[in-house]
């Protein structure tokens, strides 16, 4: 079964601290994975996708097929990073399977 798991509902860190939001997936085949972010009172928007191997707003995510993980990392958190983060897996047929979401709170 295709599944995305984000084990942490809430992650609270201080400004300047490193951040790692965990995401594990279950998928047979080559996965296409995304991180979406939802800032307060805003719509969901794409943060990054693994095929682009890009860094957006200082965030990176590496696909680890051996551990079936796609953790989101940032070396120095900023207060403006506070948001809800969703990991998502693209399933055949174009459907996105979302994890439960992790709320990141960056304290001053």
């Amino acid at each position, binding site marked *: 079964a295709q599944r995305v798991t984000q084990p942490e509902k809430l992650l609270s860190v201080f400004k300047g601290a490193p951040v790692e939001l965990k995401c594990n997936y279950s998928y047979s085949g080559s996965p296409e994975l*995304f991180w979406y972010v939802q800032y307060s009172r805003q719509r*969901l928007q*794409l943060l990054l996708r693994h095929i682009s191997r890009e860094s957006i707003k200082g965030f990176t995510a590496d696909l680890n097929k051996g551990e079936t993980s796609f953790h989101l990392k940032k070396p120095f958190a900023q207060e403006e990073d506070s948001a809800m983060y969703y990991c998502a897996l693209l399933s055949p047929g*174009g459907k996105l399977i979302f994890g*439960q979401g992790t709320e990141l709170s960056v304290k001053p």
Partner: protein
Amino acid sequence: NAGVTQTPKFRILKIGQSMTLQCAQDMNHNYMYWYRQDPGMGLKLIYYSVGAGITDKGEVPNGYNVSRSTTEDFPLRLELAAPSQTSVYFCASSYLGLAGTNNEQFFGPGTRLTVL
């Protein structure tokens, strides 16, 4: 481009009432989706459409209906509203190409629905 638009932004319904949530996109996307977002539960797919005239059920379709008569519009219909349908509803669209191409989904601002 307006992107993905949704109306209304907020609505309160009484049990048993019906309503239609509107969604439109102006990006000529072939795929459109409806999700509900419950606290701590992530986003659950209700229905989706791969093109005009074609719709299919997602993970939680019970109590909802959809239609896709045009590429641009994808309304979601609630019949006989129940308190369990209290949620935030998001519409999204994408242009689905081959694997490895840009399969980003674009989301609307959401509709907050309360059923009392």
